[in-house]
């Protein structure tokens, strides 16, 4: 998916570079290391998402770039200026807060013009507000106050406020967090088109892997203050670097179970109980104990004779597709999950044989969790 920067707006997007950045929170004597030596290069106009569970350091990183948190060590460059010691307003960044952080006593027009009138005297703030309001089709909201807006409208106003000063870098914290499913889907597309059109270098922080995959040009999956993998959605989904990335990205989530490697001439197989699966990995050593990753969406049962055979424990018919949980003798502690096509109806107790294309079965080192290619 190529990214086409149609029309650069204002001063033009700037690259963003994060070099060996660390953040330690001093609470009492011992410090909590929220971010451990982070490195990230973002090209101008690129949309990057920081994806990870809560407490993985993604919001802290965003706040450090925005200037809302001090940087314990390392450097952040916007364009070629080192911004570590600059207050937020001097970093010329647009920030969208998770709770929208609109100004309650002011109406939408005043919310947008607040920044314009606050710092340096801007020629005609109302004209700029009207112009942006037209572009975002929110002219009718200008006279309303935040409390009377729906969460979708609040999200749009928060975004407009971040864009109003045409910042070269846009930082959004969980922009779709408080929206219901229908609105989220619509706003997601709108945000992607908008970013493409405005051409801002953008960082989006989210815990929702679906949101990250759809919005990202590239995405950084984070955990424990470290970037686990940084790449395009295709690389992250189809070529996970370790067990955490494979487990965190993808819904329904990946099956992970132990198996032993069997080398058979050029081919690599893994033995699970009595069954055997061919895998694409080349560097696995014969007889090694490994963790196997198998995505439910990649398992197909129609017309498969050789693969894993188990008995259905629970079958959920979601009409667009089905989800079956299958007990397999080789995987004692929890059932395997497979996503079955709509036309394949299964009932509890039935036996099913399923497999997946070799390049879609991933092997991970049992201890370190690192991917074995």
């Amino acid at each position: 998916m190529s990214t086409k920067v149609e029309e650069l707006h204002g001063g033009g997007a700037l690259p963003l570079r994060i070099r060996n950045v660390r953040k330690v929170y001093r609470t009492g004597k011992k410090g909590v290391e929220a971010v451990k030596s982070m490195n990230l290069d973002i090209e101008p106009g690129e949309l990057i998402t920081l994806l990870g569970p809560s407490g993985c350091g993604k919001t802290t990183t965003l706040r450090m770039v925005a200037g809302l948190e001090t940087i314990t060590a390392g450097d952040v460059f916007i364009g070629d200026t080192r911004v570590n010691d600059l207050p937020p307003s001097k970093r010329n960044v647009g920030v969208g807060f998770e709770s929208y952080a609109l100004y309650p006593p002011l109406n939408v027009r005043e919310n947008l013009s607040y920044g314009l009138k606050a710092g340096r005297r801007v020629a005609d703030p109302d004209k700029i507000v009207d112009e942006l309001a037209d572009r975002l089709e929110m002219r009718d909201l200008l006279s309303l106050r935040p409390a009377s807006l729906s969460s979708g409208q609040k999200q749009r106003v928060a975004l407009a406020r971040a864009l109003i000063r045409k910042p070269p870098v846009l930082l959004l914290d969980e922009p779709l967090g408080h929206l219901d499913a229908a609105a989220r889907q619509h706003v997601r597309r709108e945000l992607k088109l908008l970013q493409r059109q405005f051409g801002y270098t953008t960082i989006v922080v989210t815990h929702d892997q679906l949101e990250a995959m759809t919005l990202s040009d590239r995405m950084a999956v984070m955990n424990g203050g470290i970037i686990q993998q940084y790449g395009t959605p295709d690389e992250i989904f189809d070529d996970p670097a370790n067990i955490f990335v494979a487990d965190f990205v993808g819904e329904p989530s990946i099956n992970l179970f132990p198996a032993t490697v069997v080398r058979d001439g050029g081919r690599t197989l893994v033995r699970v109980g009595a069954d055997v699966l061919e895998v694409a990995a080349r560097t696995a050593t014969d007889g090694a104990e490994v963790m196997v990753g198998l995505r439910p969406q990649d398992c197909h049962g129609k017309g498969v004779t050789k693969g894993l055979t188990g008995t259905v424990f629970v079958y959920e018919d979601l009409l667009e597709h089905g989800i079956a949980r299958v007990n397999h003798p080789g995987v004692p502690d929890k059932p395997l999950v497979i996503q079955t096509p709509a036309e394949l109806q299964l009932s509890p107790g039935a036996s099913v044989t399923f497999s997946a294309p070799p390049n879609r079965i991933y092997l991970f080192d049992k201890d370190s969790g690192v991917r074995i290619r």
Partner: protein
Amino acid sequence: MGTLKVRDLTKTYGSTTAIDHLAIDVRDGEFFVILGPSGAGKTTTLKAIAGLVEIDEGSVEIAGVDMTQVEPYYRNVAMAFESYALYPQKTVKDNLASPLKSGRHHHYDEAERTRRIADVTKTLGIDHLLDRLPKELSNGQRQRTALGRVLVRPADIYLLDEPLSHLDAKLRASMRAELKSIASRSNTTTLYVTHDYQEALALADRIAVLRQGEFVQIGTPAEIWRSPVDTFVARAVGQPEINLVDGVVRGGKVRALGGALEFPAPAALELPEGKEIRVGMRPSELVVHREVHDGGWLRVTGRIRLAQRLGRDVELDIEVGDGHLIVIDRADASHEEGQQIELDIHLPNVHLFDGGAPDEHTARLGSAVGRGAAPLPEELEEELGE
């Protein structure tokens, strides 16, 4: 026995009507789901049946007994609250023992109580947490404890209020499966409330779609999916949402998207000339044209505006004529933005709704082939003889 008969159930808070003359008949042992957006009155309905709110009108009959004016503690119903409502100062064990100690319906001695608690906590995998306080539990563990307090005691009806809504996606999927297996083994009538359509489809014997305090449709998951009574129900199930494009009947043909979408108007529906129509097509049922289908398929051509990766699939935003359609396709195919693309959809899967104002919910008239419901995939399979 564990049947539930509700008639004209109405509750107003001041000037707003929370629920308006609801009526349902739940068979004994049935898993009945109420699906609706937040604020539709789902929780009010449950609490009205449990007797926790004063209703303005209507009657509630549980297990053949009229319970309309009966106090909650005599109704022999058990409820899992969305906020879990665990007693903060009691351990998990005491929370579960509470319904057994009240002695309202049946007196359980110490041994019986311990056995029941052990049995339930083992099933729910929280038998190692008996001495913990609610604040020491994770969200998932609190949710299971709330569920345990319902399952630990016999009751005529189990009322579950959005039990999975506060869990993260991974935990929600596994808990849904666990609920499915527990429900199949227990034969207690269960009334389950949710805003997540997948939970409704996965768990329900029957679903009642609720909007602003009124039931819009009651039916099996297949009926709700195949023949939604109006655009509201059609949009309530399925992710991404069903495509709805406005069209009009011209010269015996249904024309939409500025002419890019055209097919003969089904004779059975007797659609008058110039009739405003709304065409509904589900993204998962619109297929990118790769192999030839024999008769009964509709072809539409458009240009890719946006391709967004969605796990194993890709969500394509296709510009078609003067509108746009959302389609799901396999990720490993190539999708260049601006590239032209052809889409096929099987005619019975094309829903026809009455025309109307943009945000108006309009009734379903039938499908592109006539009055009936869209066929289920497995029926489709026999037809194509695969």
